[in-house]
């Protein structure tokens, strides 16, 4: 998959953990954190998912957002 994606994990993230996702936008919503960004291919999304697993974060959802790139 390529394009914009949005990943939700449960709980809030410390600055330390946010640092593990350079290049992604990190937003807090009640009880969850939304990581979003652009991917060129499925491999990049997998890399992010691997890192989420490695950090022990609980994945809530993964969405591909149908939206053309800005600019």
């Amino acid at each position, binding site marked *: 998959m390529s394009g914009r994606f949005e990943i939700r994990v449960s709980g809030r993230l410390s600055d330390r953990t946010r640092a593990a996702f350079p290049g992604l936008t990190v937003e807090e919503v009640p009880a969850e954190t939304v990581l979003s960004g652009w991917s060129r291919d499925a491999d990049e999304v997998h890399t992010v998912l691997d890192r989420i697993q*490695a950090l022990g974060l*609980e994945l809530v959802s993964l969405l591909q957002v149908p939206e053309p790139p800005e600019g």
Partner: protein
Amino acid sequence: MVRIPASRTVVPPLPAWSVPRPALRARLAAAAAGQLIVVIAPAGSGKTVLLAEWARHDQEQHQQTATAWVGLDRDDADPDRFWAAVLAAVLAADVVPADDPLHGLRGRAAAGDDIADALLDGLDDLPVPLRLVLDDAHVLSHRRSGSRALARLVRHRPAGVRLVLAARSDPAVGLPRLRLSDGLCELRVRDLRFTVDEAAALAASCGVPLTGDEVAVLHRRTEGWAAGLRLAVLALRRDREEPGAFLARFSGDERSVADYLGGEILAGLTPDDRALLGDLAVCGRLPDPLAVTLSGHPDAARRLEELTHGLGMVDRVDPGTHRLHTLVRSHLDADLARRRPDRHRRQHAVAARWWAEHAEPAHALRHAERADDPALTADLLRRVAVPLLARGELPALRRALAGLDTPTRRDDPHLALIAALVHLADREPASAAALLRSARAAVPARPAPPAPPGPGLAALRATAELFASAAGAGPRPSAGATGVAVPDDPASAGLLHLARGTSLLATAGAGDTDAARAELRRALAAARAGGFARLEADAYAGLALTAVVDGDPRGVTGPAEAALRADRHATPVRTAGTAAVLAWADLLRGDPARAAARCAELLEESVRLAAADAYALRAVHGAAVGDLGRRGAGAAATRAAREALGDTALPAAVAAALALLEHRAALLLGNVRAAHAVTTWLVARTGETDEVRLMRAWVEAATGRWEAARTAVGPLLGRDRPPGTLRVEAHLLAAETALRGEDTARARSALDAALAAGRAHDLVRPFALAGVRARALLGERTPVAGFDARVAAVCRGAAPEAAPPLSERELVVLALLPSLLAAPAMAEELVVSVNTVKTQIRSIYAKLGVSTRRHAVTRARERGLLV
């Protein structure tokens, strides 16, 4: 065969803090024979510990069932490694009788699939029950070949073997189907959650006694997640503080459990340990010398060993290699990235250089990317790109190139050439051509110190230009490109030889394949010497193509099958060209069913094939379908495929071979106009070749002008080294014209010549499609075995009678048949007499073998005479 370290095939030791889980063990033990057991839950849920506990418990109870254990890693997605790992685990279980054939497999240098067959058979016959645990099975799913190998093992679950998979996500082995047929025993995250009592036991076993309320808080906050519980207990033990205060903070925090606990663990480390582990956290696997290089401490290995025995944050995976606990490592890595981003990048750069020097180029490139250091990536690419290309590790190259900005990629001739070669390997000639132009512009007029474009760069440039020209994306290669000195390193040399061979083949006709063949053999030798899988596959594919140029289907089969073997883990998109060549050989060797099946298998997969490959597959498929009896459909599909090809480049010999198939199919349908269109297409691509002359002679014969056919085919008979196909076809046509001229003696000698050439190349199909009289004469012979017998058999068989072609006048009348015009109106339209029209209509019906106007229209449409 791949060597599998013993550490990966032992049942892991139970950690000191583990809590016995008899209820889960009982559920595992209760699984019915033949059921697949899967334990699927996120990292840190206690999958491995549970399965290890089960195995050890049974062992202590002297249960009959022994356990074979494989801890899988990402590299095992390569089927060779996967099957080797499974075999190693089975043998390590120490229950296979000494005389069992399974032992013999260990020393065999066979490929994965051969090992798989023998291994599955051997397991079926195993006299003792065995439990086979594949831990971390999710790592296989990042490659299609890994999933396929696992699915195969699941499908063929050997009788006496209890198969157990532990994974973070559902493996693609058809779980829903197994569930429906009651073939599945599943434990999932909800089953693996620790109960409150288990949580209390875990804390107690770590020396942290908690009250009932405290346990309840801990359990609620972690939701029974094993790793969370453990980290929390670790943090409690480290701090030696009042558990109540810690738990109050923990339960009041909104952060993710792992995030919070990661912070607690890091805060509890001594500054020295934290600095050391932080420096090492950029790498998952840490060979001791790498640990020393990364940390700058000569005694890093000793300190890791101490930490291994202390808190369980470090594991020793084999003597001389450690691994940080994944969760702890990830938090340490994130911590370093935030607090000291420069240091974090520097550590990745150090790791990149270290792996580059230790023969792990793909690994090195990934670290360079994380180091965010384009100069380092560029430097590494210049050093390792050629071996990566030769091995076929294109994803790593694509990723690394994508990380560089466009000017860097374009203005450095070395990088531009590498990028061009990646595009050519991906069959994107247009992108490659643009980069080649940049590379030419960027090469300095005078070599500028300190990095003059040395022999390496010259060879790389020649390689890229030769490939590009063969792909139709560049001018004919200059003399400099063909004559450049061959570099010393095997990867560069092998690629250059392959490029020369490919370039020669693009324009070669029969009789000048020797040079191409010699280059390809050199490429093959280099591939074998260096263990370069992709180069090996490409060299074999080139040799198969050489045989097509020689019109020699027998010569195709060996190298084409070797190419597919060497490339067996590649996607069908990549191997489609070779599959088409192999199908062409099947067809010409007289096996249309096999040819059709081979093509259909690829055409039915929903993959985007390269244009040239799609055309070749469809053209061969169309011809094969025609031979199997559906001539009209086959011919229509072939023509559509050729029209879809557009002006995509195709080696001249391939264009000729495929055009001959389509031309022949058109004539068999009596469609002379379609045959002419094929000839025109081929002339535009290759000029006036002997294949074109053969086509013209065929048309003369098809329209009954036997004398003209004899004259046209005459020059083709005396050629010095014609392609095998052309030689056989020319002699067969000569035989038919001789028979029409009642010259039996000349016909027999022509048939003998055709048979001799056919035998040499195993060309059966031309005989099946030969003229009626030549076929009759061949069918009279009664050889008992071998090639001549096969030819006699196809000649006696119900061979397709070529449909008589319609004359130009008849085609004009035919065009009016779908209309509702009656014969008098048609006569008026065509300005001829009604009788003439009626005569022509009768003749059309006879030639099409029909008796009504409606059937005539249907049949004419089938044959492509009406559109």
